[in-house]
Structures are given as C-alpha cells and as structure tokens.
C-alpha cells in the first residue's frame, strides 16, 4: 500500500472514530451526577452476586468476556517479547553481572520493602472481590516487587529468586484457567463464564462465586507475565553480549 493510500485510510478511520467518540462523550451523564443508569444496574447486579468490589463484579462477572480478551492480549505480548528477545546465535552470556555501585540506604530499603510489597500484592489479589484492586493490580505489584532485588543491586539473587521457566508456565496456566472456567460455566449453566459456586454471604472472604477464582487466575497470569517480561529485558541488557569473535 502506498504512503498516500495509507494516509487517506488513516484520516478516514481516525476522523470517523473522533466524530463518534465526541458524539458519545457529549451524551454521557455528567461526572458525579446522581443520574447514572449504568452504575445503578451494575450496582444491583454486583450486590445480587455477593461481590463487594463493584469494579471486580464488572470486570469478572458482568463483562468477564472482555477481561478474557485483555488477558489474551497480555499473553500474546509476553509471548512476542519472549520470541523477540531470545538469545541470538552470535550472543553469549558473560559473567560480569554487577549492576554498578548502589547506596547502602537503597540496598537496605530494597530488602525491607521487598517482602512487604510482595505480601501486599498477594493481599490485593486474594481480596480482589472485596476491596479496591484485583488480580491485575495485585499481579503487577507482586511482579514488580520482586524486582526490588535488582534495585538493591543483587541481580544474581534476583535470577535465583525467579527462574524463568516456572513463570512461563504460570503465565500459560493462569490464562488457561480463566478460559477453562469460562468453558466450565458454558457446560454447567449454558453460558460462558457463568458462575459455578454458590454465593455464601456479602463481604465474606469466599463470597463472590467464580469472581474470586478468576481474580486468582488473572493474578497468577499477570505476576508471571510481568516477571517473564522484565526477565527477558534484564537478560538482554545485563547478561547477553554479542560474541567478540563472531564479528569479522
């Protein structure tokens, strides 16, 4: 396709999106106003399914299929990075993995904050259906929290703490579990991602049916995805060098 044709196509499509977006936005109920039909329906549906965190109710129950799509995008991008950043034939590992000089205060801060951060991440995942947060947020917190080890200047320890292979598995298992729960709902109740577990009481730890389980699956997937992603980038930047004799 020529450059002009591409520009024309972009202008047409972009213009159409812009026009429809503006038309949609001006008809939205005003921010913070009492009239908000979508909120009212979502609220009642969330309460009926014992899901205290309404955002999780929307993400994993009312619009669960959208979330499956998002998780698949994450899976695809992590796979893409893994393929793209794999070790090339003319690259080799080298032993110098020092990340430079790190302030003692930074080192100590990293050691202290690391376990707290990871614990908070797990807390956010397990209470995703009760309090703000959820599988994605908690997974990101866990995935980044581990990398405080790198900030503390201990790249070798980080490598030992998170071998890549189990997390590549975790990424696949998390995404697969989400889809499997969807199919299970289809088989049992006749609707994709339909709830399978009885509701046992608003605000309880095990209360919102499959929402809590889906939160867990997403948590595993996102935490693993972030770890694999950063592991590949760190490996490229720190460990792998182009082989000297390979060049000319």
């Amino acid at each position, binding site marked *: 396709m020529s450059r002009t044709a591409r520009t024309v196509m972009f202008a047409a499509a972009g213009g159409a999106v812009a026009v429809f977006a503006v038309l949609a936005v001006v008809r939205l109920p005003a921010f913070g106003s009492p009239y908000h039909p979508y909120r009212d329906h979502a609220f009642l549906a969330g309460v009926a399914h014992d899901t205290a965190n309404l955002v999780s109710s929307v993400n994993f129950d009312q619009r669960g299929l959208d979330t499956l799509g998002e998780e698949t995008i994450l899976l695809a991008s992590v796979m893409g990075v893994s393929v793209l950043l794999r070790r090339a034939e003319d690259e080799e590992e080298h032993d110098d993995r020092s990340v430079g000089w790190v302030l003692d205060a930074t080192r100590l801060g990293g050691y202290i904050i690391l376990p707290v951060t990871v614990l908070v991440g797990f807390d956010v995942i397990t209470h995703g259906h009760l309090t703000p947060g959820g599988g994605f947020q908690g997974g990101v917190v866990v995935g980044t929290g581990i990398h405080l080890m790198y900030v503390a200047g201990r790249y070798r320890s980080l490598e030992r703490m998170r071998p890549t292979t189990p997390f590549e598995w975790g990424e696949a298992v998390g995404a697969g579990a989400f889809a499997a729960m969807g199919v299970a709902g289809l088989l049992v109740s006749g609707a994709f991602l339909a709830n399978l577990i009885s509701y046992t009481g608003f605000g309880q730890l095990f209360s919102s049916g499959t929402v809590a389980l889906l939160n867990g699956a997403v948590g595993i997937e996102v935490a693993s995805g*972030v770890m694999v992603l950063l592991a590949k980038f760190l490996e490229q930047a720190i460990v792998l060098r182009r082989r000297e004799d390979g060049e000319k």
Partner: protein
Amino acid sequence: MVALTVVGLAGTAVVMTVRTDRQAVALAAFGLSLAVLFMALQAPDVALSQIGVGTAIVPLMVMLTVRKTRQSR
C-alpha cells in the same frame, strides 16, 4: 484540578525531553502524576496499576533498551 494541571505539565515535560534515558525518568514522573490524578478521581485500583505499569515497568523497559542499544554500538 491541581492534579490534572500537574499531569499536563509532566506530559509536556516528557515530550520536550530530548535524550531517551532522561525521557524514561520524565515518563516515570508523568506516570506518578497520573496515579495521583486517579486517586483524586476515587479510582484507587486504577492508580495501583498505574504506579506498577506506568512508573515502574515501562520506564525500566525503556532504560534497559537504551542500555542494550548503547552496548551494541
């Protein structure tokens, strides 16, 4: 309103930064200001993801990429 202004200023700073490595730091600051805005708009869960993705993961990826490209030059 203050948070929104800071987001605007930080975003402009990211665009105006020429060197890529400094741009990553500006990007992290921009991400943090966005997280503050999300908090002010009562969306703590979005703010949490924003801190993780926008201020930690993405700038780190940019920094590592810059480091890698400098090595191979």
